């Protein structure tokens, strides 16, 4: 599929020497939800800023919809929307006016019907006449989304869209993102909630210290880096492992009373292997009193990647 956004060798060194982006190459496809994961200060917001015109790249190129952002930025920016991390908007403005202003700022003719549609989809229509300062935090964030959608962007950046939002509102926000995806909007989101990326994203990129450590399909990443972990509590402690058990990726722990299995991948292979292991234990006459299995999450993979600081093969 054609890339909608392409970054090549993108670097940003701030005055003072901080390298926020280090030779980043990234290609985002049309219609996908791309989650950019990374700890605080990893370079996520700088990357978004570089594409959206808030940050001047030190080197590298950015192409959006085939337009070079260094030269043909007007055409590219008119199709990009941004929901910033901070609740930055004129708090004295009424909701509808703020959203209409955003549409006009991007050079589009007023369209009350379209604004109504956007406000209704975000459950803001009833609040259209209210000043933004009078709204709750979750509603303010939805106003920012409405402002970003006012010019009907094809590519939308959501910088920490659910930061500081309670669980219920977060789920509501996910539903909104889902609707946008259904409309064909390409979405790039940064998040601290790995669970969010796991649930929403088609592809995931992990960034740390300005370097893009890995980009892959979420499912492929889970399959490649995912693990199954099983703790089998033995009825009697074992000093050594018999060969038929030793062929599995297992280790003895807790003085030989726990057999720990760590293997498989994110596709369920590990579970099948644990089942085989239990049969092998019975075959070898080793009794057990409990089994606890756990599949590794995207969060485990993320933490492991950050720990290693390099792309695992």
């Amino acid at each position, binding site marked *: 599929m054609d890339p909608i956004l392409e970054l090549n060798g993108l670097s940003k060194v*701030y005055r003072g020497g901080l390298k926020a982006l280090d030779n980043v190459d990234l290609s985002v496809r049309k219609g996908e939800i791309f989650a950019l994961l990374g700890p605080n200060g990893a370079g996520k917001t*700088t990357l978004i*800023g570089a594409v*959206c*015109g*808030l*940050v*001047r790249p030190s080197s590298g190129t950015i192409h959006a919809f085939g337009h070079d952002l260094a030269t043909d*930025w*007007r*055409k590219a*920016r*008119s199709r*990009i929307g*941004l929901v*910033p991390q*901070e609740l*930055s*908007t*004129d708090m*004295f403005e009424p909701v509808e*006016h703020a959203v209409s*202003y*955003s549409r*006009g*700022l*991007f*050079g*589009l*003719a007023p369209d009350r019907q379209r604004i109504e549609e956007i406000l209704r989809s975000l459950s803001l229509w009833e609040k259209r006449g209210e000043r933004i300062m009078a709204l709750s935090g979750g509603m303010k964030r939805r106003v920012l989304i409405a*402002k970003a959608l006012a010019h009907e962007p094809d590519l939308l950046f959501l910088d920490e869209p659910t930061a500081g939002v309670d669980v219920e509102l977060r789920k509501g926000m996910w539903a909104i993102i889902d609707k946008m995806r259904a409309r064909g909007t390409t979405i790039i989101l940064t998040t601290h909630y790995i669970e969010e990326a796991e649930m929403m994203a088609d592809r995931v990129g992990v960034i740390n210290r300005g370097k893009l450590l890995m980009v892959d399909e979420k499912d492929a990443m889970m399959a490649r880096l995912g693990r199954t972990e099983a703790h089998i509590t033995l009825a009697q402690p074992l000093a050594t492992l018999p060969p038929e058990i030793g062929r599995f990726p297992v280790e003895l722990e807790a003085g030989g009373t726990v057999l720990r299995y760590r293997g498989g991948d994110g596709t369920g292979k590990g579970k099948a292997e644990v089942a085989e292991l239990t049969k092998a234990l019975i075959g070898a006459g080793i009794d057990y009193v409990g089994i606890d299995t756990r599949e590794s999450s995207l969060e485990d993979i993320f933490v492991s990647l950050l720990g290693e600081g390099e792309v695992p093969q």
Partner: protein
Amino acid sequence: MISWRSTWSIYTRELVRFLRTAFQSVLAPVLTTSLYFIVFGAAIGGRMPDLDGVQYGAFIIPGLLMLTLLGETTSNSSFGIYMPRFTGTIYELLSAPVGVTETLIGFVGAAMTKSLILATIILVTARLFVDYSIAYPVLAVFYIMLVAAAFSLFGFILGIWADNFEKLGIIPMLFLTPLTFLGGTFYSIDMLPKPWDTIALANPIVYLVSGLRWTFYGTSDVNIWVSFGITLGFLALCVSVIAYIFKTGWRLRA
């Protein structure tokens, strides 16, 4: 290519912001101007001789107009761009497909409009206290617009330069207001003893007050073309500085 819809959006939003505080924005200059006319026009002015053949109360109108015009235009424009920087809402402007032209016409045009509204209000207020007529009304309007444009641009630069509220207020308060007071608002430069009459010519505001006074009464401290030239030169300088700011992203883009 300029996006006029984007320009119109910035312009109207700025005017709406002005209208939100219209009571304070309009009432404060009207009250200040009225006080000046009561003190200098009625109380003291009655005892002053005519200056350049103009009654003292009428003589000070262009200066007072310039005093309000410079202060209000600079602060309106500087706040207009500083507040989005301060609150973070500037992200929307920077990420939109708008360039320096749309931004300037929008922000500076709105600041100019506000200034022209204020100038009209001040002239109407002055009419309540002093009898005056304008010798070259078209030129007066043109000159007021020229000064408003130049100082809107100046305010815009100030709003980008300032990184706190103190800096935002320091230039109008410590430089513009004193220079306007010393720029012949209440007197003719000819009235100053030597060498102060020559030193006063180093004050750029002298040329602005003098130029506006010429459009009102046909008399001035300095040649009208010098006044026009200096105003245009200042305007060109401000445009160049802003073009540089947008080109480099200084204080706008990280």
